[in-house]
């Protein structure tokens, strides 16, 4: 069955540290890839997405993600985190043949000021 794995359940960083959150999926066909973010008390928001083209995609607030097809990965990165990046981050994959969005377990990021 199709699945999405996020390696880190809780990440704690100090401000200005670099961030990389791992995401791997198990489907071998064509996929659309997403990262969503949920700030405390807010609803789920789209951070960035990859459909095709340049595998390095840039999103809002300085985030970027790289699609590596051979590794079935779509890791999220940010060179320097801020306290306001404290949130839960979800990786999601849509296997186009099924048209269903599958979410990873989520990674809670805590940034210490």
């Amino acid at each position, binding site marked *: 069955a199709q699945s999405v794995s996020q390696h880190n359940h809780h990440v704690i960083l100090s401000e200005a540290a670099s961030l990389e959150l791992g995401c791997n999926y198990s489907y071998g066909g064509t996929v*659309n890839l997403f990262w*969503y973010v949920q700030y405390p008390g807010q*609803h789920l928001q789209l951070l960035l997405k990859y459909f095709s083209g340049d595998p390095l995609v840039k999103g809002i607030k300085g985030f970027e993600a790289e699609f590596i097809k051979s590794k079935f990965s779509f890791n999220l990165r940010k060179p320097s985190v801020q306290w306001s990046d404290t949130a839960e981050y979800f990786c999601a994959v*849509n296997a186009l043949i*099924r048209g269903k*969005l599958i*979410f990873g377990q989520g990674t809670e990021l805590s940034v210490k000021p």
Partner: protein
Amino acid sequence: SAVISQKPSRDICQRGTSLTIQCQVDSQVTMMFWYRQQPGQSLTLIATANQGSEATYESGFVIDKFPISRPNLTFSTLTVSNMSPEDSSIYLCSVTSGGAGETQYFGPGTRLLVL
């Protein structure tokens, strides 16, 4: 992106009762979805709400427990029937203006506690 609202935002219900959650979008959308997010877990798709036809349910979810309506292109409801404490979750609707693989935008969610 579309602006999505849900009612109620939260509720506390007694076991055995039912609750209907509304999802309203400020523009016409092609597809609407209902998700459940149980405490400490990720989002799980319950069903796809189809306009003018019955909803398409995912494995583990049935129409008798989670009846869904979608009378038009901007509105849908999800009912959680005969509730038990295990139904305590956040229920979210999402929409897309494109096909099934397109970006989904999420509502604020309904936080349900069943006693």
